[in-house]
């Protein structure tokens, strides 16, 4: 089974995107051979009150996704009142398995006291947190969109002040992040994981990422439905790593991190 750790449902405000409803996304994932995908409501990134987006996601997917394909992720803005109760509700009532943070969109620092408290709470609830570096290529962004991407310098002070949360850095220059964050990641209790959405399979980048992040530190993440899934499948097919490492990247690492079953029964 292939587990996609970075997918969305809902309306993206800056471009018409096909596959934005849960049913459409399921079809798209199935066509690409993805067995499970962790999805957040992209509206939660853009609503002033992100929790309204999480509530929408829960209303769309219900208490249990019938085929287990879509796994819920919540988006929490720790600079918005009520975030503690919202996060606990997302985990305990909605069944969210992942916390996605957008500090640039929501206007806070990852090492702010509130965000550090949120990360500690995520660790306590055994929920990894994911940091998408970007939603769309910066060169094509709408004038109302943000004009920067998450950078290693944004993450490093957070890692130095938070030791326990499992962190996934997604859709960014993962190799640069892994190199620059190696010092801050060393000795933490929590993992620091990366996807390879912006890496090449042909230029030796994946083996180096595995060396830096560890065999358990590399995940599959596609950005569906904003991005085509198949470029990531091509990388998976051609990456110069052993079959064991490939199996871990396809599903085992994500399953362990998120508490999911890695294989079909």
């Amino acid at each position, binding site marked *: 089974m292939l587990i996609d750790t970075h997918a969305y449902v809902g309306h993206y405000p800056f*471009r*018409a*995107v*096909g*596959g934005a409803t849960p049913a459409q996304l399921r079809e798209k994932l199935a066509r*690409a051979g993805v067995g499970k995908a962790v999805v957040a409501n992209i509206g939660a990134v853009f609503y002033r009150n992100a929790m309204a987006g999480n509530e929408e996601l829960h209303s769309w997917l219900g208490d249990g996704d019938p085929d287990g394909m879509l796994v819920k992720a919540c988006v929490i803005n720790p600079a918005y009142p009520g975030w503690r109760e919202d996060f606990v509700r997302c985990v305990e009532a909605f069944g969210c398995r992942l916390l996605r943070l957008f500090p640039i969109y929501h206007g806070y620092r990852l090492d702010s006291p509130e965000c550090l408290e949120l990360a500690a709470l995520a660790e306590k609830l055994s929920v990894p947190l994911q940091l998408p570096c970007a939603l*769309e*290529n*910066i*060169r*094509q*962004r*709408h*004038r109302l969109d943000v*004009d920067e991407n998450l950078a290693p310098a944004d993450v490093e002070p957070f890692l130095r002040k938070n030791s326990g949360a499992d962190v996934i850095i997604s859709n960014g220059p993962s190799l640069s992040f892994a190199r620059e964050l190696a010092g801050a990641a060393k000795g933490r209790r929590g993992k620091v994981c990366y996807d390879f959405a912006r890496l*090449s*399979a*042909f*230029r030796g980048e994946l083996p180096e990422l595995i060396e830096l992040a560890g065999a358990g530190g590399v995940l599959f993440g596609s950005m*569906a*439905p*904003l*991005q*085509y*899934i*198949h*470029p*990531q*499948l*091509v*990388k998976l*097919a*051609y990456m110069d790593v052993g079959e064991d490492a490939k199996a871990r990247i396809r599903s085992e690492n994500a399953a362990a991190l998120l508490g999911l079953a890695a294989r079909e029964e």
Partner: protein
Amino acid sequence: MRLFRENRVVNWHEHVWLGPDGGLDRDRLRELVAIAKATHMDALVCSNPVMVPDSPPELARRCNDAVAEAAALHPGFIMGMGFVNPGFHDEAIAEVDRCILELGFAGVKLYNQYFISDPAVRGVIRRCAQLGAPILEHAGKLTHMPQSQPFLSDGAHFAKAASENPDATFIYAHIGGGGDWEWSLKAIAPHGNVFADTSGGGCDEGMIERAVELLGAGRLLFGTDMSFEAGVGKLLAADISWEDKKTILCNPRFEKYLERGPRHAD
């Protein structure tokens, strides 16, 4: 990968480069050829553009010599596109002639020294039209930091050049190369002598489908521009017909440009 394995694949946007010694970088060429063969490509159309504003004619000539050397090392697999800086008008025309008539290149590559619609480029366009050589121009509609490439041609520049030169053939480079691709596709859509290549690392869902909807598969050319996974993956993923995919992978309207070969002095 069945689509790529079972069909002829012509990659219309790739590059070879000069190495530290100023000649063809053979290590990078070996890597390029290995990746292209592993991904089932049958032909690579390569250029070696100079990416500085005032690139002198001597440098363009050296870059094109490197392309010719790569083509000679891989006959029938690597074809050339000759780079010129249109600002050096007479030298550029002479180099277009050398690249097309002597080196047997498929066409001409322009970078971002001038907008494609700039009067300075007209002489090169006219000569390419006379020689039946397509013009591949670096392109994009940057919405972020457009000042980083002040003379980057967008779809509107191509539309103007196409209107003024209806007998010329233009290729809008890398719709996945960054920038608002849909903006440019809409601008070039009414102009049947403007084609677009699919290369670039951008793989926004819907990009290929929208390009087929606006231009038709017959005005699209497969390309990678060093982003092989994105180039291959977006064709595999696109929700278009198998026939349209085959057309993009090997556009029959462009096969004639690949038939030219170097002229040998007997």
